[in-house]
């Protein structure tokens, strides 16, 4: 692995000399390379559209699952790739997620079942909003939990909190600086000759507000561009899939390896709103299977690429709500309630399903139709914020939430 000092020497930034380098960067340069000195990194992935968690992690030990989903249930594990991959005798992975199985086996991947919001809404708009703001039921919250989770720093790296999206998502908005980069290659002034001119123009401007931001910006641009110009080969033979999530994780991986000061990253991936034709000719094929293959392969490639560095990294996935237990008339499912989360990375208590399974019997369902929520999504996130980001101010990150009941997904 390239050491951070070597990276900086090779980058154009090194030419400006450490004396005039920004504070965050000189700190990064002089930091020791030992794992204890490295920033821990939290990556959150939002599956927009409400993924059907019951067909992601299959409760194959539940007879009701099969009776309520005669046309779309994933068959009980039988060793074939048309059936669920057994995890613990009760739950199994969708066969398209086979690349996650090794991570489960080596204890890097944990599953949290029946997670969701205390708010009953079945509106995508409201539920995503609540999950990103971290304040279910409160619409006027102006910032997001992931931004509030950042510990205030005097010289924050401009690439400290990055979203791989064209706009800054709700969850990263707030008082801490955060950056939305649709694609690292686009993060520059596209006309090379004008770039230098603008840099001088803003750098000598008496407009203190714009001058300050522009300095930071051009520093970040140089970092990102030197990163983009260096050829990148994922380590350990990792192959990222070509879809949106795979490409987002690839760019996150590049930033992490270049030690640009990344602490939190966000990526989202859509297409999960499977009202119609959730499954194809057979239950293990079709729309959801295709999406899941991309999803699982992207996470597995990232983990492989990161190698030992996964010890510093935690990845958590979420979706605004689950889907109805019973299939609808179009080989799909409608908006439901509780869902499933994956937590991947170092110090994760992996290889097990966390949370309390509420069951799928008619009297166990929420409003007679959906998986009940037994774990507030904020419990999981609060644990990540406390144990991985070292922020214990849970009352600030999740106002109005009592974060004392950690479910123990992290060691």
């Amino acid at each position, binding site marked *: 692995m390239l050491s951070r000092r070597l990276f900086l020497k090779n980058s154009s930034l090194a030419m400006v000399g450490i004396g005039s380098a920004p504070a965050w960067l000189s700190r990064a340069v002089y930091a020791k390379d030992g794992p204890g000195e490295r920033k821990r990194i939290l990556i959150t992935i939002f599956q927009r559209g409400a993924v059907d968690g019951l067909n992601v992690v299959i409760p194959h030990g539940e007879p009701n699952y099969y009776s309520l989903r005669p046309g779309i249930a994933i068959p009980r594990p039988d060793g074939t790739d048309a059936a669920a991959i057994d995890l613990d005798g009760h739950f199994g992975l969708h066969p398209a997620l086979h690349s996650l199985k090794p991570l489960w086996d080596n204890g890097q991947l944990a599953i949290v079942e029946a997670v969701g919001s205390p708010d009953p809404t079945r509106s995508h708009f409201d539920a995503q909003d609540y999950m990103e703001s971290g304040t279910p039921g409160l619409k*006027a919250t102006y910032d997001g939990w992931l931004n509030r989770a950042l510990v205030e720093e005097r010289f924050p790296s401009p690439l400290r909190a990055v979203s791989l999206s064209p706009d800054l998502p709700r969850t990263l908005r707030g008082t801490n600086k955060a950056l*939305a980069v649709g694609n690292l290659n686009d*993060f*520059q*002034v596209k006309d090379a000759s*004008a770039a230098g001119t603008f840099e001088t*123009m803003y750098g000598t401007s*008496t407009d203190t507000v714009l001058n300050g931001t522009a300095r930071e910006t051009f520093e970040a641009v140089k970092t990102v561009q030197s990163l983009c110009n260096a050829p990148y080969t994922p380590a350990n033979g990792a192959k990222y899939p070509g879809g949106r999530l795979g490409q987002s994780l690839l760019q996150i991986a590049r930033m992490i390896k270049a030690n640009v000061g990344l602490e939190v990253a966000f990526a989202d991936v859509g297409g999960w709103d499977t009202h119609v034709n959730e499954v194809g*000719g057979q239950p293990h094929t079709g729309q959801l299977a295709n999406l899941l293959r991309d999803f699982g392969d992207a996470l597995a490639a990232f983990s492989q690429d990161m190698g030992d560095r996964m010890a510093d990294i935690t990845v958590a996935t979420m979706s605004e709500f689950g889907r109805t237990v019973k299939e609808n008339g179009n080989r799909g499912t409608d908006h439901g309630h509780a869902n499933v989360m994956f937590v991947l990375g170092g110090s994760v208590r992996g290889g097990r399903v966390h949370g309390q399974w509420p069951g799928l019997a008619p009297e166990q369902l929420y409003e007679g139709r959906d998986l009940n929520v037994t774990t507030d999504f904020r419990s999981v996130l609060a644990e990540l914020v406390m144990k991985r980001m070292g922020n214990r101010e849970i009352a600030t990150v999740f106002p109005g939430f009592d974060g004392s009941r950690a479910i123990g997904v992290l060691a």
Partner: protein
Amino acid sequence: MTRRSQPTILIVIALALLVEPIFAAGLLNPKKIKAKSNPPQYVRFSQVLPQDEQLFHALERLTFGPKPGDLDSLQHLGLRNWLELQLHPERVPENPELQQRLAPLESLRMSIRETYVHYPPPQWIRAVARGQGNLPEDPEVRAVVLHLAERYVRKSAATPNDPNDDSDLDLKAKLDDILTPQQIAVLKAGASEERRRILAAIPPQKQRDFVWALRPAERRQLFLAAPVPLRRELMLSINPQNVVANDLSEGKLLRAIYSNHQLEELLVDFWFNHFNVFQGKGADRYLIPTYEREAIRPHVFDTFYNLLLATAESPAMLFYLDNWQSVAPPPAGAAAPGKRGGKHGLNENYGRELLELHTLGVNSGYTQQDVIEVARCFTGWTIANQQKGGGFEYKDKVHDKGQKTVLGHIIPAGGGMSDGLEVLQILAHHPATAHHLSLQLARRFVADDPPPSLVNRMTQTFLKSGGDLRQVTQTMVRSPEFWSQGAYEAKIKTPFELVVSAVRATNADVTSAFLLARELQKLGEPLYGKVEPTGYSSANADWVSSAGLLDRMNFALALVHNCVPGVTVNTAQWQSTAEEDPLKLARLVLQQNPSGPTQAAIRKTFAAQPQVDLARNAKDTQPGLPALIAGLALGSPEFQRH
């Protein structure tokens, strides 16, 4: 700076003398202003702007930015007359060019019901496909619905890997009837200019046949090149509801760029944002055109009560903040509400935002109990026939009939719709509301931290006039604080303001507002796309970010190089000016003297380019140095402010 060290009393006198010429005829008596009542950090709001900067300031702050020539006509008309006209837009004829450009955007003029019928939502199409829905009466719309329903059926039946699940092959043969083989070839592989010409020549009566002779993917590709009416037809054939959403954003951009009623447009934007609703929330895309046209626009110079009532009764707001579903909780001991996600009882969303955002303001003394009591007063304010495009309806049978106490006022039991109306009356005339709204207006139009002297006077006007918004606006734009150094260039433009001001400054021709609106999405301010009820912030800090700054520079350069889709800049207009003096060109674009760093940057760029560059670019269509100079001016720090 000697001025800053002057004793405050001298400044007050100087201010009174300087302001007098503008504010003659008793519009305002500046001698009454006690500038010294402001804390010392507001001293710059006591320093009046020189005359020429006042003119520029008026155009920057009370319009979407000066066009070339605007400064001269303002000077000719006189600032006072101009202000008077902007405050009374009904006295200024609207720009015929704007009306012409708005004409094809038909959904802007439709009722909610008509919008549903003409641009049927996907649920309707699904219902028809399942044999459950009624077909629209209009034969053309019926054809669209039938076609989409048929496609839906075919798509549902197809296996997911069928490559033909998204085509309308049965109609394909007709393309030959409409276009010649050569034309079809050009359309498939020709240059964009040629494609545009062919599309523009398709006669209106053949447009629909043309659309249905193409596969959906081919139709999408033509969005870029088709003239507005044809592009709407293409879109209608794929996803009708998107036509409504796009008409709305296009209309807003076109009005901002071309309207003669600039202050009114700014106020419509301000009050819409104050009463924000989000286009992406379900039915709201069908409800917002009517909302802006009937609840916001007619009331920006009206009383605040009328504006507030119009929003409270609007389906768009009732839907957005869920009040349409808010019903009296069932009496104790009664059966629990129905399962399957039916009525949940009281919904506090509207009550909370009404107090916090629309009227009193946060931390103004109301309690959670007030929120609940207000929500109870509005139970039964709902939408008639919500799925079918109905309007406001008050449903007495779900109204909470109990006694309520709102901010200490007792609203007796047994009331009906009058409960909500009484709440609106209390709130619309409350001193906290007067102050909150004055502060919001001053933050948007004067400075992020406006001087208390100004906000207090606006508050007084509000209370004395019964919430007359024209008078409150008037107090603000005739105040010495408005025409002070403190206000001058104090605001960073939002992306919307930046894009519109750049288009105006370059006299650009908007060939497709649809495409230009998409640029705003990239710049972080999608029109009608603010999810939260807070609306977009007008605070500088919220619009200065690393990615945002790069986006602004890239936008400036792309615009002058004609790389922003939907806008054409005539760079040839700058050729002779640039040859004469590049700084003169920068002045022309900025309508003011460029700052020192901007001048230096332009001089350096000019010196680095060989003169031959100018000559060469004059011949071919490549925008050369003049465009680059204009781009540097538009990307400069001073153009980000107003």
